[in-house]
């Protein structure tokens, strides 16, 4: 086994290397800021490991190339940023319907429309509530550090394969561009060989009956039956996969809830607030779908206040309200268009709420 390696790198490059280490051998993408480093890294790295890199003619083509590679059983990924992810939604709906284990990275920037190229978290609804047509869910993972971007991307390939469901890594422009130390866990070849043979892939029907991958069900009741199977999987995922990090929640009068880069800001806010004698705790959803409703429900009581912070006009806050179900008062503060929530302003808001 190869020893682990420590380097200084960006979130984008950490995501790309994690994919390589996780056995991703097909990447198709289209340039868009602030995730261009992923494309460039893959262009250089894929040939070294005998994989395929394609700069596609569009985001639509990229997601469909990934569809094709997944059909044959390859591990495959595409990445983009907000406007590009909108273009991929048709393909994402098909991937979910056909149960193909894609890994899709969204390094979010400001929207709507062309927006800007600065960090944002305004694609939460799109990522967690559908985005494309039909009843489906992506598994959505939200890293907060470069190391976690690496770890979650690596894990995303196994999660996608285990559940036969596309996984989205939902980062933002800060995480993508920021450099931090990263420990690269080298791939264990034995682990790769242990992967079970996939029984749905198309690679020529030698020695077996021909297979079909499809999402079209025209027969009476067929689609409803297929959808019920998908929903069973989603219910199971809600039990098995929801994750959150809790800090200082037990004695907290006010609990901050934030994910991704905003979590890092809130962590600093919490430390400052504690210094001022304010009992502030922090919860970070790591899986945005399935959302950690239970974790938030458990800390909700009428004496507690909850403050959700996002780089959006308030999207995740809706899931927090669902989890809390009126048991605690929920406040929101956020900025959009590349504006980054400031520690002082969040502190002021906390003091105002607790007054």
């Amino acid at each position: 086994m190869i020893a682990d390696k420590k380097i200084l790198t960006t979130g984008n490059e950490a995501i790309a290397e994690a994919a390589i280490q996780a056995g991703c051998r097909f990447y198709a993408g289209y340039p868009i800021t602030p995730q261009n480093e992923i494309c460039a890294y893959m262009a250089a790295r894929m040939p070294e490991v005998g994989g395929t890199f394609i700069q596609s003619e569009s985001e639509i083509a990229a997601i469909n190339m990934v569809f094709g590679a997944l059909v044959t059983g390859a591990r495959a990924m595409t990445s983009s940023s907000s406007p590009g992810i909108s273009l991929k939604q048709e393909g994402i709906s098909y991937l979910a319907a056909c149960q193909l284990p894609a890994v899709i990275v969204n390094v979010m920037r400001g929207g709507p429309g062309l927006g800007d190229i600065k960090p944002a978290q305004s694609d939460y609804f799109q990522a967690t509530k559908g985005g494309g047509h039909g009843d489906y869910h992506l598994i959505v993972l939200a890293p907060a550090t470069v190391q976690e971007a690496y770890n979650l991307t690596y894990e995303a390939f196994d999660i996608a394969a285990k559940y036969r469901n596309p996984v989205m890594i939902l980062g933002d422009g800060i995480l993508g561009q920021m450099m931090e130390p990263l420990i690269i866990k080298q791939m264990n070849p034995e682990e790769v060989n242990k992967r079970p043979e996939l029984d749905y892939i198309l690679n020529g029907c030698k020695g077996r009956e021909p297979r079909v991958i499809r999402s079209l069900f025209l027969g009476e009741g067929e689609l409803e039956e297929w959808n019920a199977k998908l929903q069973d999987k989603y219910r199971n995922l809600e039990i098995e996969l929801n994750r959150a990090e809790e800090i200082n929640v037990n004695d907290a009068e006010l609990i901050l809830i934030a994910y991704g880069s905003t979590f890092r800001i809130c962590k600093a806010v919490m430390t400052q607030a504690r210094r001022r004698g304010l009992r502030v705790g922090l919860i970070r959803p790591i899986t945005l779908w399935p959302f950690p409703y239970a974790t938030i429900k458990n800390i909700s009581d009428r004496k507690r206040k909850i403050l959700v912070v996002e780089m959006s006009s308030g999207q995740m806050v809706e899931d927090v309200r669902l989890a809390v179900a009126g048991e605690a008062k929920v406040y929101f503060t956020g900025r959009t268009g590349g504006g980054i929530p400031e520690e002082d302003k969040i502190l002021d808001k906390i003091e105002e709420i607790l007054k």
Partner: protein
Amino acid sequence: MVKLYTRPESLKQTEWHFCGGCGHGIVHRLVAEVIDELGMRENTVAVAPVGCAVIAYEYFNFDVTESPHGRPPAVATGMKRTLPDRLIFTYQGDGDLAAIGTAELVHAANRGEKITVIFVNNAVYGMTNGQMAPTTILSQRTETTPLGRDAERDGFPLRITEMLSVLPGVKFLARTAVHTPQDIAKTKKAIHDAFQVQLNNLGFSLVEVLSMCPTCWRVSPRESLEWVRNNMIPYYPLGRIKEPESEEEKVSVKKKSSIKKHIFKKKV
């Protein structure tokens, strides 16, 4: 007793859902016959389109995936790059290929992807009951051109196969038809040669097949054969539009014995 005519192994034992007089059944059968003759049934993966051929997987007796509308060349790109030794082809209609999927087609062709496209051109959107296709000919009446296609308003019918001919990555292009037995034979030969171009790793190949749609043309099946002759062929001339250039490439396509000798490179 020698059996002269039988169902190809590459076709499933099932009934067609196509309308009477439709050309899709003929083209499906020709593709299946060629794949049998190439001995490739167990090494083929096809991409079905959205349109009348959407359930091609109900008929082809080999691996088939569906694809979003117009995206088969992108899907096939991902498949061929990960399975370079398999025969990968898309089966697409004129709406799928020449309207919503124009970008995917042109760029797969321009990359010289070693895939084959079977392009069935019947000048109309059949699945949705007969709207104008990019290939609908001038003055042809459809649901969305009730007074006939007007170049001023609707643009001209798209000769997309000729458009592709200028791309260096494209190695084989032919336009054939299936309205007469002779043309059916030529279509089969063209499909064979297009697949052979792929198996010889030369580049992108496409066969455009002019086909009948009596239902949406609002004519009888018999009249639809005349319709191909009188209305389509004058605008879409038949023939080999592009073939491999070098002598070496030509020989390898023409040589029938090369079919059986094709050796698969084991994917590492």
